[in-house]
């Protein structure tokens, strides 16, 4: 482990900017919610900002993007397909443990199963990741319930842990080591690991008092959802509160559903666009010919929680599909973010037990 003085963060960002597009938490000039965005000036990077309003999902899986274009001339029957050029490697600086876990879930969805999605792979290629340990939780957080924080466990090149006016710099890869040497960082000494552990333990201890917005004890609920033991009226109750706005999916670090549409232009040209989709939308399950096997919102709502918490999904992600960032709870106008749904289901379990 090394020491990175906080004053040297900008230098680290500038070093990475030479070969990467930079992304990280920024705060607008008028304050407001921090956002995880593209950074042109390394000085804009705000590692001390609260958990960003949006996860870094859009960096690897943009809300809407052209994945290819084509031209077909019906007269000559000439067809050509053009795939867009590769993007520059990206560096994510200051990604929180929950969001890094979310990124790894997306990796497993797009890359880690039977097929490799080439568009996602190009976004992810040669990525440099500097993760940032949450040395204190934010009010919305429950990563300790989902095993995804407060310290990053895997998938980073560098993990930073703030201790006073410096960061403990932990290289997770050879790339991370090389950057430390390039920056001429000082070794953190033999006590660094113990210091990091104390810092992380102190952060975990603060959850009870400071992460007061949400608690989501999900293990029992995972069992319940997997076994299908949840009564329909519970899903109806949850579905009744859904506005079908899709915000939960859009701010979720692990939601990976998308829709693909061809937008036709003149001369037989068309762009193929891929855009985020949400299981809360009625059109999500609507098929050609207008048949919709999941028209009632509760039929689609339960799928969201199935997707996040069932065992069959966990087998694919090698973990629960929820990373405990608490964003869905913040954005949901109907109060059916993850922690509330977990509470409704647990309440049902308690009632059933009392009978």
């Amino acid at each position, binding site marked *: 482990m090394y020491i990175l003085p906080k004053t040297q963060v900008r230098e680290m960002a500038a070093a990475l900017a030479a070969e990467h597009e930079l992304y990280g938490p920024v705060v607008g000039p008028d304050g407001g919610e921090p956002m995880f965005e593209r950074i042109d000036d390394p000085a804009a990077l705000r590692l001390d900002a609260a958990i960003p309003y949006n996860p870094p999902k859009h960096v690897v899986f943009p809300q809407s993007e052209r994945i290819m274009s084509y031209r077909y001339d019906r007269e000559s029957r000439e067809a050509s397909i053009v795939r867009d050029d590769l993007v520059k490697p990206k560096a994510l600086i200051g990604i929180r443990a929950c969001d890094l876990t979310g990124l790894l879930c997306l990796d497993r969805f797009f890359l880690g199963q039977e097929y490799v999605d080439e568009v996602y792979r190009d976004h992810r290629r040669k990525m440099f990741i500097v993760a940032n340990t949450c040395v204190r939780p934010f009010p919305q957080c429950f990563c300790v319930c989902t095993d995804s924080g407060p310290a990053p466990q895997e998938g980073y090149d560098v993990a930073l842990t703030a201790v006073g006016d410096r960061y403990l710099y932990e290289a997770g890869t050879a790339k991370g080591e090389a950057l430390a040497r390039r920056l001429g960082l000082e070794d953190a000494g033999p006590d660094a690991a113990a210091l990091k552990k104390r810092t992380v333990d102190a952060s975990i201890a603060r959850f009870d008092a400071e992460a007061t917005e949400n608690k989501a004890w999900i293990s029992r609920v995972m069992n319940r959802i997997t076994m299908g033991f949840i009564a329909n009226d519970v899903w109806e109750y949850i579905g009744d509160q859904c506005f079908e706005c899709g915000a939960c999916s859009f701010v979720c670090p692990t939601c990976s559903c998308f829709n693909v549409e*061809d937008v036709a232009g003149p001369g037989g040209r068309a762009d193929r666009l891929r855009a985020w989709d949400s299981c809360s939308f009625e059109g999500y399950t609507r098929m*050609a010919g207008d048949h919709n096997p999941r028209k009632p919102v509760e039929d689609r709502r339960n799928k969201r929680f199935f997707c996040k918490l069932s065992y069959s999904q966990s087998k694919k992600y090698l973990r629960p599909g929820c990373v405990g960032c608490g964003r869905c709870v913040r954005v949901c106008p109907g109060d059916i973010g993850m922690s509330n749904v977990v509470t409704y289901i647990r309440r049902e379990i308690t009632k059933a037990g009392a009978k």
Partner: protein
Amino acid sequence: MSGPHPGAIVTVPEIAVIDEVREEIEDVRTFHFSFEDPAVAERFRIRSGQFVMCTVFGAGEFAVSLPFSPEGDRPHLSVRQVGKVTRALHELRAGDKIGIRGPFGNGFPFEAIKGKNVVYVAGGIGLIPLRSSIVHVLQHRKDFGRIVLIYGSRSSKERDGPLRGGPGDRAGAGGRVRPARVGAGEQRQAQGRGGQGDRGPFRACRHGRSSSRAIIGSLLAPDELPGQDDHFPNIDDEQRGQ
């Protein structure tokens, strides 16, 4: 390309030429196709039960099951026009081009059901996705026991459509496919015919509505009903949700 499907076209479609368009039944046409690039055609390997994404240039892309057998069968798609993209496909003629990516999904596990009787249950155009498997089983007739197809259609014309021509044709199968009419009351009786002796444990493959499972249930004895480990693609709610 990495992963366990080395030949699959994952993200960007490959261009294919429509060689022949055939009218099947009302609103259903079969499109025979071949890849423009012979190297792609060489790599393109399917398993019965898989599907592809078909691009109709200018209109969009749709998922469609593969009705042809992995071996000795002409690549084709049989499509009913139901929406924007399938309507645009129906506009196309021989010589027109489409995009194909895939194949995706799991195939039917023929190795696991070797030596067993096979029951197919389908209704209407739901037979199309099973055609590949049926043809495969007929091509390897000695590897399987009895082959039963339980099929419902709105008319006899529709019934004969999907298996007409090719290795799955009744005539082509050398008279080994024999149609039978079975009324509801005769179902249990039909099941008893032949005696217990010559029936091995059944394995059933299903496609389409969940009521098909009830039909299978009414035709098979309880000990022949497919269990959890049998091959009911898509039957599980969990799997369907993804």
